[in-house]
């Protein structure tokens, strides 16, 4: 059994997600007045990847076939096409972006808090409770 378990790894993935989400929100807000800009959002498909790796086996019968595991990262940025809030083709909803920004910030701080908690409990074990 590893010293760190899976907790740090999960928290790291979540931090990665929160970081990419923050960049996406910053980009959406920066482009709030750009004509025809479509808002981006971030999908966290860690759970989906885990489920897929359990019972979904794929084989490539030809080298020219597309690889099924192209998704190297746990996060994926998608563009929300198909809606328009502004008459200039832009679909950035500032209210939503600002709410997401606040949520994401607290989420990030909670994750950092949890990582620190994990480290301090490890440290307490290493020191034998002293």
């Amino acid at each position, binding site marked *: 059994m590893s010293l760190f378990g899976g907790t740090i790894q999960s928290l790291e993935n979540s*931090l990665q997600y929160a970081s990419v989400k923050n960049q996406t929100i910053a980009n959406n807000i920066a482009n709030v007045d*750009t*004509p025809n*800009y479509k808002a981006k959002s971030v999908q966290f498909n860690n759970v989906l990847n885990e489920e897929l790796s359990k019972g979904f086996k794929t084989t490539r019968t030809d080298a020219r076939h597309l690889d099924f595991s192209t998704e190297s990262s746990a996060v994926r*940025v998608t563009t929300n096409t198909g809606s328009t809030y502004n008459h200039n083709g832009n679909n950035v909803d500032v209210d939503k972006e600002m709410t997401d920004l606040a949520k994401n910030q607290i989420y*990030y*701080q909670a994750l950092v808090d949890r990582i620190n908690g994990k480290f301090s409990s490890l440290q307490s074990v290493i020191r034998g409770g002293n």
Partner: protein
Amino acid sequence: MSIFNAINTSGSGLTAQRLRMDTISSNIANADTTRATVNENGEYEPYRRKMTVFSSKGQSFSSVLNQATAGSSNTGSGVKVSDIEEDDEPFQLVYNPNHPDANDDGYVEVPNVDPLQEMVDMMSATRSYEANVTALNASKTMLMKALEIGK
């Protein structure tokens, strides 16, 4: 991917909105300028209203292809001012026979600047600027928090 990506993105938004504000200021300042340029006939022309054109950065084919092949997610890299265009709307004619630029009928061509439109634009630029400042502060707080990992 730089850790300061989000801050740079918000910074580009601030720059763009400030330039938009500069353009609006110029429009308002020149709302009565009848001698802005000289046309091919050697006559004075009034000031033409200027508009900023925004486009999002990191959307070119090459950058999207690079992102796709590198396997990283394309979060975009902010906004840029791609052009400052002039408004093609015709100049308004105002009857003022005493004006030095009045034509033979006593009419003066005045700039196609609508102060109302400029004020609305200015409010929009201010609010967008504020939103970018908020986003920048959020990114800053997150980075500062990240430095606390393992402390």
